[in-house]
């Protein structure tokens, strides 16, 4: 794995739109290091709608988003482009 720092946000149990706001807040806080690729934000959620709203907002902001489904929740990984 790479030496990237990971910011974990656990919002299991919360529902949209709060989920989105929490994720955006985290992205805002780290936005400079996130753009440089020094940090990535990983959101864990069990709310299905968040797997649509979070990636679409993060992509509009110019990030790359990967969504992974595990047994009990979704993992949304937000990183710099390229």
């Amino acid at each position, binding site marked *: 794995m790479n030496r990237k720092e990971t910011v974990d946000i656990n919002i299991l149990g919360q*529902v*949209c*739109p*709060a989920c*989105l*706001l929490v994720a*955006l*807040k985290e*992205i*805002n806080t780290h*936005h400079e290091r996130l753009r440089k690729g020094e940090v990535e934000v990983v959101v864990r959620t069990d709310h299905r*709608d968040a797997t*649509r*709203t979070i990636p*679409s*907002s993060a992509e*509009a*902001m*110019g990030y790359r988003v990967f969504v992974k489904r595990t047994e009990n929740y979704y993992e949304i990984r937000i990183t710099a482009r390229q």
Partner: protein
Amino acid sequence: MKVPDPISLQTENRHLKVLNKRYIQYIREKVNQLLEVMGTQPLKPEELDDETLLEFDPIGIVAGAFQQILEHLRQTNRELELARDELQAIFNATGVGISIIDSDFRIIRCNEKQRQMLVSEPSEDIRGRFCYEVYCYKDSPGLDCPAVETLATGRAVTLREVKKKDKYFQVVTTPLKDHEGRTKGVIEVLIDVTEKKKAEELMLRTEKMVSLGQMSAGIAHELNTPLGSILGYSRLLLKDKNLTEKQIEWLGIIAEQTKRCSRIIKGLLDFARLPEETPVGRCDVNCAINSAVELLKKEALKRKIRIETELNNVPIVRGSQSEIEQVFINILLNALQAIGKDGRVHIRTYNEDQMVVAEFKDTGPGIPESIRHRIFDPFFTTKPVGEGTGLGLSISSGIVNRIGGTIEVVNSPEEGSIFRVRLVADA
């Protein structure tokens, strides 16, 4: 100090609460509006009570997100602009002509090269005009037009060879499709294949000449000896004192015609001579033209044809003086014969890159397109039997090609033909 009375305090308090509620309501509404823009549902009051709402600062969060969205858009725009400039530069720098044409055959865009190749007026705005008008000088799309086929079938089409403005082009059309896969236009790529075609033609001609040359050299050699005997014996016979007037005349014709045969054979032998037998010499082109003109002056006078010369200062070229003179005599004589009577031949020399050009322009009938590619073939002639053997130009092109030059023929825009002999300047 006056103590406020509890009743009025209560009223004021109620009033403030109502106001406060309205402010919060306003904030919730605006937050929801922003959330909708972000593509999500409104916040429910039970999810977030009024106090946490303010503390959470959703408007601040969305504003921060918007800032990043804008930043990203600006960056994307910059990248798109750069990509567009790059694409435009490639579009214009490429060596092939590119046009984008819509389904009504209107030109949407074309690159610089396309303009240079097909548009006569460089500053002309051709956008929105019909491609068949601008490129093909027609008032409707041609039957063999590849763009018609591509628009109809949605497939790419290649037209191997099409002639425009004295040049040969290869045309490739590929469909331009919309989101639903329907053909909404064509991209037309035009490649100039004139040089390639010329090289191929020259190659073919050279091959033909080499084989013909070998054959004729053999025949010519075989014929020379018997012809020599005919000439010798007819001359011997002419010395006989007992011949009648008629017999003397007939013998004279035999001798004359035999000499003519010898000349043709000499021509064949010249033609068949291999390159390594002649060392490449140096030649003064203007000088060669003057001698050719001098030699044919009488013939021109007889035909009432004026020969004009416009000889410019040109460098010495590679090639033997007598051979190049021979070439000019052939071309000039052809011009006189083509004009027949009354006319003009204009001869001009000039520099062109590393070449010296000798140009012969006559006021004859020109050369029909249908035979233009054959006039350099050995024995091709349109002249009556006895007048032309059809060797003049094939011998000439043999001589010129051997020393790295070319002979080009075009019909003059006004009248007659133009022959251009290009010779290599001697370094």
